[in-house]
């Protein structure tokens, strides 16, 4: 079935260092990929969404590139900020008529001063 894999449960790094959170997926179709961010006691919010025309989405300094050959959509940022500390979920939405969004297990990013 369709699934999303986030291998890192916790990523801890120092402010100013680059961020990379892994996301790979399995899908029968050509899905849309998303990154959602959830801060403490808040609802998850959309951070990035993949495009169909190979553009690289960017938001708040974060970017991700959809690589169909490796089924990956890793999240990256050149310099981590303290405020980036949160839970990050990679998710996919099927292009079929099921309109279903499947989430990965999430990665907690902890940025230290």
């Amino acid at each position, binding site marked *: 079935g369709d699934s999303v894999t986030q291998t890192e449960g916790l990523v801890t790094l120092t402010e100013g260092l680059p961020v990379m959170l892994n996301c790979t997926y399995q899908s029968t179709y050509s899905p849309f990929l998303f990154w959602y961010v959830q801060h403490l006691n808040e*609802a998850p919010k959309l951070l990035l969404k993949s495009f169909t025309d190979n553009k690289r989405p960017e938001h708040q300094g974060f970017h991700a590139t959809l690589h169909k050959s490796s089924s990956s959509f890793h999240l990256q940022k050149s310099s981590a900020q303290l405020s980036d500390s949160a839970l990050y979920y990679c998710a996919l939405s099927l292009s079929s008529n099921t*309109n*279903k*969004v499947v989430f990965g297990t999430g990665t907690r990013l902890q940025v230290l001063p």
Partner: protein
Amino acid sequence: GALVYQYPRRTICKSGTSMRMECQAVGFQATSVAWYRQSPQKTFELIALSTVNSAIKYEQNFTQEKFPISHPNLSFSSMTVLNAYLEDRGLYLCGAGDWGNTGQLYFGEGSKLTVL
């Protein structure tokens, strides 16, 4: 912009009782509404996906008898947790989307269920 309001934010109920939660979409047409549960230390489990004018599709391990859902129009949905027990505790999230080809969901703040 697109917003989703979800209420109540928190409920504490006794074991065996029921809890109803509501989801209101503002600024877009909620063609589809997905209900998720985020249990402690777990990711989002999809309970069911409701699309207006289509049957509600429940995921494995979730049933209509336990989690009845209503999606009467393009701005509102509700879900009830019947006979709640300890394993039902968690944050219940409503994600609504005007699908088209984007598949993006807008989430409410969630309804946190504590079962005593």
